[in-house]
């Protein structure tokens, strides 16, 4: 069966079933081509985040899953989480509180980039989100919108091959939400990344523009 799938780019969610305590939470079979967004909608507690946990490699032991997930033709599920090159954006920015803003960004840059180029790359990333000069700042002093932007910049600096969005806009206030959505989806399509968005907000699904799956 590999010869049928290994030419596929993007995410291939192949006949995935996620089960908790004998109860099936999810059954999905779909393909997410590069640059497109696949939205999973459902109320909280419906288990929609378990799909992201499965793909990211953090499905709690109480859950069990069957099927396979392929990224650019290669199966992800047998790889350890840090080899999957899948980046997740959460509803909290989750900037590491013991590092500076710049420290967070440099930490994400692949080790192939060496020496002074690392800092330069982080400074460029800050400039691209209108936060030039924030390198040495304490993340705790940023506004909610600034944190969300730094989290996105950090995610992209790690050069992921797919994005997982776990209700990333739900804690932002209405004014910020629109601009953040635009920033995230534009970044994903520019980089031709397949995206899975989990949300309970219909406006998110509409902005994403791709197919919607209801749990």
């Amino acid at each position, binding site marked *: 069966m590999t010869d049928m799938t290994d030419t596929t780019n993007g995410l291939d969610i192949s006949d995935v079933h996620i089960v908790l305590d004998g109860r099936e939470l999810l059954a999905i079979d779909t393909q997410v081509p590069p640059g497109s967004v696949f939205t999973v909608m459902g109320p909280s507690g419906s288990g929609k985040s378990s799909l992201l946990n499965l793909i990211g490699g953090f499905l709690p032991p109480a859950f069990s899953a069957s099927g396979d997930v392929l990224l650019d033709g290669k199966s992800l599920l047998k790889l350890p989480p840090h080899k999957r*090159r899948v980046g997740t954006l959460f509803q909290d920015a989750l900037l590491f509180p013991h590092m500076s803003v710049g420290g967070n960004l440099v930490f994400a840059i692949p080790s192939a980039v060496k020496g002074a180029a690392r800092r330069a790359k982080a400074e460029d990333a800050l400039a691209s989100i209108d936060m030039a000069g924030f390198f040495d700042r304490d993340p705790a002093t940023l506004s909610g919108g600034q944190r969300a932007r730094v989290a996105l910049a950090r995610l992209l600096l790690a050069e992921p091959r797919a994005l997982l969005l776990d209700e990333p806009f739900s804690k932002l206030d209405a004014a910020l939400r629109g601009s953040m959505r635009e920033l995230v989806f534009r970044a994903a399509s520019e980089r031709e990344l397949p995206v899975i968005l989990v949300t309970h907000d219909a406006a998110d699904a509409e902005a994403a523009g791709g197919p919607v799956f209801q749990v």
Partner: protein
Amino acid sequence: MPLAMFPVLTLALLLGPIIAGLAATFLPAFGYFPALGGEEFNFEPFSMLWNQPGLWQSAWLSIKVGLVSTILALTITALFLAGWHSTRSFRAVQGFISPLLSVPHAAAAFGIAFLLAPSGWLMRFASPELTGFTRPPTYLFPGDEGAWALILGMTVKELPFLILMSLAAWPQLRADKKLQVAAGLGYGRVAGFLHSVWPQLYGQIRLAVFAVLAFAASVVDVALILGPSTPATLPVRLLDWMNDPDLSKRFLASAGAVLQLGLVLAAMGAWLAVEKLGGLMCSSLAASGRRMTRDGLVRRGALVVTVALVAMVVLGTIVLALWSVAGFWRFPDVLPQAFTLKSWSGQSSQALRVLGNTFLIGGLAVAVAAVLTIGCLEREHRSGRDGGQRALLLLYVPLLVPQIAFVFGLQMFSLSLGIDTSLAAVVLVHLVFVLPYLFLSLADPWRNVDPRFAQVGAGMGHGPNVYLWRVRLPLLLRAILTAAAVGFSVSIAQYLPTLLIGGGRLPTVTTEAVALASGGNRRIIGVYAFLQLVAPLVGFVIAAAVPAFLFRNRREMRP
């Protein structure tokens, strides 16, 4: 070393010495110990033991101290929490609880002795105006025959421990909701607490209560300072036999240690009955439906007793410090006539030596315990499995088995192997007691790190080792150093293991202070007891200062 080895190695280092020590206590108790000429099993050591004068009085005192001090400490804990939780008075007392816990038992005991003795500080405050005494009265304290001074000393040290364990369990109980419901049904504060929160809370701290009971029933250092001498409690007499130059007394001591183990088991059995009785009383009270809204007297009583016990340790430490710098100090005077550093300068070289030993032993034990604990917790995190209730029980084993029953065996063990008492042996025995406290302090902060941080790290392509060193350990630096400080204070307080395994060649501030107890030179005792108080503080100061400096520009890293 592969991570999977950490739990195995930890258990081996934790339980190995206990099992080996118990075995080496039991064999000579039944006459078998070839190194001392005991070639075959017999009951001679026990018949020697039964013939010791006052043996049953000593045994009874040990059980009495264990049960009475535990009941007192637990009752005060329950009533104080019931009457005062989430009030201003409670928070005021709470501020004293953690520092109090780091005061070594022996130092607290000296403080109480210096405070309540006939020529103690309280008597000096009251004399001669209130009492009419111009020379010290002659009541026997410490050292009263009924061991009440000892019971007081143990209660004072157990109370902060039980309060702290209760506070740690509190958040899981959703107590505030339950108390609201009980108040809504018209129950008074204390009754509402006893019916709705206490049964579950007790379930959470039950192991700690048993640890307290076992410790109090077999304590040596506090008993040497506050306990009776005619006869002494059994553990004190055991120590005498163990240190007797006549090596054949070791058989007697082994039999006594087996008896001590039996006494602790009996006390635990009696405690099960106490639990039943307490449960019955609570449930019949609940069934009666009495609201007990007029509980002001109980509440105020609990506050007064708690504050008095806390104040006793605080005043005790002050009077210890005073004695260490006292010149001539006549009886009814509240303060010495002159202050001098003579006691300090006279002891300076010896004091530096024992401080050096104290920090060396404690530092090594804490370092090993911290590495093992972190290895176990990281293994748990990566495998997604914690040891559950069984692992928790194993951690408590060193706190439940009476020290004297296996530490003495360990001494015999090393004797038979011909190992000279060395620093490594002392550190390994300290580790047995340091590790559980360090583990219990660090486990919750470790498990409470937001698991999504690990997902963020993996999304960046960082493997678990990079995540451990660059994220988890820095995030937990404060918690790790605090747990290390707790472990360090546990090491400093060790008397029996240091004395028996170190063979007197590695004196620490605690063994030195307790050794001075019988001499009664208050100025020199003041010096060493004060050092006992200060040494653990060093650990807590480091735990506060280092993260505060490293993360001075990181607001979310503040406590």
